[in-house]
């Protein structure tokens, strides 16, 4: 179970609705050079049937993520950092700083935003992030389902060191603008099927797949797991109902533990790791 960066911009808000012990808090998106102290001012341009047209969340500086890490550490929670960067050096610089923080052991995973990246850029970025990460660090590559050659980009992500692939089903409307909501479920499922099928045909090595987009109910999460997702990510669905998190979590765990669960999954579920990384 993962939380979408940009949708949950302050974990304290979500903590009011239930325990977060088994859900990594999302921190960021963080980017070198940003001066912002808090993700915010979500801009929604319009609403439509089953979705909304919104701008990408603005990046924050590393100190904002460190605040979340300290808050999580005080409560025994874990954190997934959403990372952005114009260059591979930027990605590594932020990660290097976070690794040196006193509460670095709460970092359960790092999600690298590569929605706009091509195959080569995915490979370069993930390789650089892997170099800057400690051994055993979960690295998630966030890829856009709507982009070209999804299998090629997923292959590059794994070759670069990603331990899981996040399939972002948001529809690009313009640079920095996306369509999100339950209406993107079909796109997410198509990406999922494409990668599951490609893994079966050994066109890419395979990795756990996290579906991000269109998960707005327990049933849509169950369908995603049956189609081969190892985990789901909730974003704008939590805006409609923050209590959805715990209902979807229970549904996913139930579906994953069902004896009839599909064997089509492309890898082990990344969320099954619940212990903190060894320093």
């Amino acid at each position, binding site marked *: 179970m993962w939380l979408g960066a940009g949708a949950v*911009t302050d974990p304290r808000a979500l903590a*009011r*609705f239930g325990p977060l012990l088994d859900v990594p808090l999302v921190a960021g998106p963080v980017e070198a050079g940003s001066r912002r102290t*808090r993700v915010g*001012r979500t801009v*929604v341009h319009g609403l439509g049937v089953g979705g909304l047209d919104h701008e990408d969340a603005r990046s924050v500086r590393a100190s904002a993520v460190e605040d979340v890490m300290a808050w999580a550490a005080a409560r025994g929670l874990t954190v997934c950092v959403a990372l952005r960067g114009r260059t591979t050096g930027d990605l590594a610089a932020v990660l290097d700083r976070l690794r040196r923080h006193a509460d670095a052991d709460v970092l359960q995973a790092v999600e690298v935003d590569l929605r706009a990246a091509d195959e080569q850029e995915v490979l370069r970025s993930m390789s650089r992030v892997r170099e800057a990460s400690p051994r055993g660090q979960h690295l998630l590559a966030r890829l856009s389902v709507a982009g070209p050659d999804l299998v090629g980009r997923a292959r590059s992500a794994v070759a670069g060191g990603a331990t899981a692939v996040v399939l972002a089903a948001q529809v690009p409307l313009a640079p920095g603008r996306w369509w999100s*909501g339950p209406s993107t479920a079909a796109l997410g499922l198509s990406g999922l099927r494409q990668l599951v099928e490609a893994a079966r045909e050994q066109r890419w090595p395979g990795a756990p797949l996290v579906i991000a987009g269109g998960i707005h109910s327990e049933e849509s999460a169950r369908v995603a797991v049956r189609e081969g997702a190892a985990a789901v990510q909730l974003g704008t669905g939590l*805006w*409609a*109902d923050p209590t959805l998190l715990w209902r979807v979590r229970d549904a996913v765990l139930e579906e994953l533990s069902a004896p009839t669960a599909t064997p089509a999954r492309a890898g082990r579920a990344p969320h099954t790791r619940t212990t903190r990384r060894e320093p």
Partner: protein
Amino acid sequence: MTTGQAATPPGAAARARAATVTAVRAAGAHDVVSLRVPDAEPWGRCRPGQFVVVPVGPGAGSVLPEVHWVAGVHGDPVHGTTVELLLPVDRGTEPGEEWRLLGPMGRGFAPPAQPVPVLLVGHEGGAVPLRWLAEQLRDRGCPVHVLLSASDPELHLDLVHLRRYARSVVLALPEDLPAALERLLDDPAVDPAVVYAAAPRPVLREVAVAGLGRQRVVRVAALDLEAPVVCGTGLCGSCDLEVGDGAEGSGGVLRPCLEGPVVPGELLVDGPTR
């Protein structure tokens, strides 16, 4: 840097609660909707300035929840607890509807410790919290004066109710509001010790500047529910308000639906004009 603590402390989980619409009464451009809630707790501690979120499911066709000010909470041993909301007429609320509510959310208006004169300033539908606040302040012995602005007289909020509890109600057009506010603040017959405001941010800033400039205590509800609200639960950040040193992105950030919505007026005066 953040400016405060979450209004509901972590660990005190806010859960969705069932509610049934029992009555709908017309009040100008709004309907006064009464909701029966099964538990007296936590509604008994609810204050004006708090709000509720009505979550939606994907089947409803909408992707964003509804967010409404709490316009009153009444309870008695026979009829149970009733929550009042003021909703737009065009929403078409009908008695018998079953709702899920998240709330009451946020931090409400705290009444003054002594029965001092108070001035309530509101704008159109954003003045909903003042309707209930006027009731509570009057019950505490505070002389209540109300200043409302609206671009159309139809948009003034439930004036019959307000006139029942307020010593005076002054109506103004939005462009006349600053002058009317200054007149009331300087009027020895009003002489408010505390100014409460619930309105869009530019109006709140005017109120804060005028009130604090005259050494009055100013408390404002910094969440504008008349503007499109994305989540109402503090997740999205669309209501963020930059306060502090004023440099874009480098000052403090106040998230009204998480750390407010009621905050001291000083926070609005120190921040940059948005």
